[in-house]
Each structure stands twice: as structure tokens, then as C-alpha cells.
């Protein structure tokens, strides 16, 4: 162990101690994804060549089942105050480092601006999916393929991709 620690110091790769807030975030995500997959498996599998109607029907069925199973969900369940602070700090750093003007330009491309959102409901059908520039995604905690981040205005939304469902959101994460 000592050798490994020394080696890590020598190569400059000393890992930061795990942040409890991130650990909690990851645990909650893991639980969510487990539920998502269990409910999804109970649905008829979407064919590889589906019609738009089949895709839509599948999304809505899964969304209903998840919403029913998580009826006690509340805002901030994933984006806890500690995670919100970390996300804001991380995004501020990446915007400063990578060029705020360009990144904000990309984020605001097709971004609908502020609007009322309700967790555990369908992502508004009329609302475009905003751009998530790769440096921004790299600065956020990684997600399983079932979930993704999107911005609506300056809000960061945690979106269930397959169910098109708003899992959580946090306000004013962008400067």
C-alpha cells in the first residue's frame, strides 16, 4: 500500500478523496437506474425498426410506470444542496477555462429559456433538447446511458432518456 501511495505521489496522480456528496448522488442514481431497468424490462421491447408512434407509446408507458413508482419523489432528491454547489463550481471553472462566450452560445442554441418544470412528469413535448457541449458534460458527474443532462434556460435538468421524464432539476447553475 505504501509503495502504491508513493508511486501515486511520484506520478502526480494522487486521487482526491471521494466526496460524500458525489457518493450519495451516485448511490441515488444507481437506485434510480435499477428501478428504471426493472420497469423497462416489464414492457414489450421496442423493435429495432420502430415507428414514431411505437417510440412515443413506449416512452409514455415507461414514464407512467416510473412516475407511479416514484410518487413520493421531490425536487432536490438528486441535486442536493451540496451537489448543486459542486455543479455550479465545476461549471464555472469549465466556462472560464474553455471560453465562456462560445460554450454559453452553444448551450443557448435552441434553448427555450426559463419555464415551469415539474419533476416526475414528461419533459415538455414542445421543448427542444438543448446542446450539451462535451466539455460541460465532462465536468458533470457521469451518468448511465438511461439518463442525461440538459439545460432549460439556466436550469440543469436530469432527464430519463427512455421515458422522456424529468427526474430532477436545479436552478441557476450557469452564471
Amino acid at each position, binding site marked *: 500500500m505504501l509503495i502504491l501511495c508513493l508511486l501515486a505521489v511520484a506520478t502526480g496522480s494522487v486521487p482526491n478523496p471521494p466526496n460524500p456528496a458525489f457518493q450519495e448522488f451516485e448511490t441515488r442514481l444507481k437506485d434510480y437506474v435499477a428501478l428504471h431497468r426493472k420497469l423497462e424490462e416489464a414492457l414489450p421491447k421496442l423493435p429495432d425498426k420502430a415507428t414514431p408512434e411505437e417510440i412515443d407509446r413506449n416512452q409514455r408507458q415507461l414514464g407512467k410506470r416510473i412516475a407511479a413508482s416514484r410518487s413520493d419523489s421531490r425536487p432536490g432528491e438528486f441535486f442536493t444542496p451540496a451537489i448543486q454547489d459542486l455543479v455550479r463550481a465545476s461549471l464555472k471553472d469549465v466556462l472560464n477555462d474553455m471560453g465562456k462566450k*462560445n460554450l454559453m452560445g*452553444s448551450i443557448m442554441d*435552441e434553448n427555450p429559456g426559463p419555464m415551469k418544470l415539474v419533476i416526475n412528469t414528461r419533459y415538455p413535448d414542445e421543448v427542444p*433538447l438543448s446542446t*450539451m457541449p*462535451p466539455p460541460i458534460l465532462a465536468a458533470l458527474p457521469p451518468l448511465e446511458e438511461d439518463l442525461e443532462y440538459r439545460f432549460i434556460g439556466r436550469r440543469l435538468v436530469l432527464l430519463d432518456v*427512455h421515458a*422522456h421524464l424529468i427526474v430532477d432539476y436545479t436552478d441557476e447553475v450557469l452564471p
Partner: protein
Amino acid sequence: MPRFTLAVVLACSLACGCPMLGGPLPTKGPASVIEAPVALPNENGSLKFAVLGDFGTGFRPEYELAQRMLEVHKQFPFEIVLLVGDNLYGAERPQDFKRKFETPFKPLLDEGVKFYGALGNHDAREQRFYEFFNMGGKLYFSFHAPHEPVRFFVLDSTYPVPEQIEWLKKELEDSKEDWKIAYFHHPPYSSGGRHGSDVKLRQTLEPLFVKNNVSVVFTGHDHFYERIKPQQGIVYFVVGSGGMLAPGDITPNSPITDKGFDRDRAFLMAEIKDDKMTFQAISRTGEVVDSGIILRRKQNP
């Protein structure tokens, strides 16, 4: 350009053989480009395809571009269309799939043309299941062309996660085709003022492309047409000019631009026969805004 002019351009272009400029064709080494004006040879048995990106607006210019593609198809019967992402802008309800894709491209779909999607930053991941994007439920995949020894590698450039990069590495290494062509949304090279080159993606992908003999890369994201000067022996295109448009967004005098067009919507037509890929970029009005011949890269001994 009116229809008559397009017909003349295509007729001349298709009939006069292949007037190559720029001297004898090199036969070894990196992919090289012989610049235009060149014709599409329209040979029997060749692979004929189109490239389209950032198109799914549902607005009139997209419909006009689709109509132009149909007119070209009558003379140059391309079989497949590579979609480099942002296939649907805004809402993605069933009616949006129709208005933004199925209706404008119905005549081509009826002709049996197959579209192969890659996902852009505005696309929902569920598009991978959509029947007419032929993604087989996958975010990244490869497929063999219907003619000629050509394999296309389709990537999800929004999420270049390690699993995908590992898959790509193995897929490229296992591919026995002469032509390896990659396409995805974010451009490793672009002179766009709005987005520009995705340098991190380039650092990830380019070594794999160079090592494994990829000859051509098609991308979108920036809303114009650009052909990049060959980079490490690979020819990169930005074809994000299918529906959205960013007029004047190509950085003037960009050192990486071989040819740029940002005044109107445009798509790319290409034909592969043996070691040669002939291409033409065609605008919504039928103007051929770029053309040339690319000779494929060959593995160094």
C-alpha cells in the same frame, strides 16, 4: 439556380466523363484530393451516396433541399444517405418525425433510398429505434456499403465514452474493407465561428483513424458546408448545411479550409469506385459549390 440550370450542370457533369484536374493520380500514401471541377462518373456498380446534416427543421428550405436531392437522384441514383446528426430540431413527437423527415423525404424513401442516422446534440437517443434511420437500436454501429469494399463507422460524438472508443478501435482493426469512412456529428476540424473544431474529440479519434487507415470523415454541427485541407492524410468534411444555416459563420481565411460554403443549404453527393471517391457539394438552388476526387488511403507496408 433554376431547374434547367441544374439539369445542365448535372448532364454535363455526368456525361463528360471525369475531367480531372491537377495532374496524374498518386497511388500510395495518405488520402489526397484532386480539386474540381469534376463530374460524378455515375458508373454502373459504383457506390453512390449522399451526406446530409443538421436538417430536420420542418421549414421550407429543408423541403426545397429534399426536392433538390430528389432531382439529383433521378440522374444519379444514390442508394443511401448518411445523416450526420441533428436529424430533428425541436419537438420529437410522432407528427414531428413526419413533418421534419418523412414528408420531405418521402419521394426518396419511396424510391428505396435508405437513410443511416448518427445522433446530434439536439437528437433524442430514442431516434436509434426509428425505422427510417436504420440504426438498429444502437447509438454507435458500423455497416457495410451495398457496393464496393466500403465500411461506414457511425459514432455518437456527444458521448465518446470509453466503451464506444474501445468498440471503435476493435471495429476498425477488424474491418477488412478498402475504404473506411467515419461519420458523426461534432467536427474534429471546423472553421465555424459558432462551434469550431472539437479538439478533445480530435485527440481521441484521430489517432485511431490514422492508425487504421480511415480515408474520409463526415461531420455536421456547424451550419455550413466545409471541406478541410487533408489532416494527417484524412479528408474531413462538415456538412451541417441541411436545414439550419449560419450565413457567414466560416472564419475568413481559415488556414484549414479547402473549400467553404455558408450562403445557402447544401448536401454532398459522392461516388466510390475502386480507389476513387468523387464528390460534389450541391446547394439548395442546384449550384455545385465544391467538387473533387479523393484517393483512398492505403496501408503503409
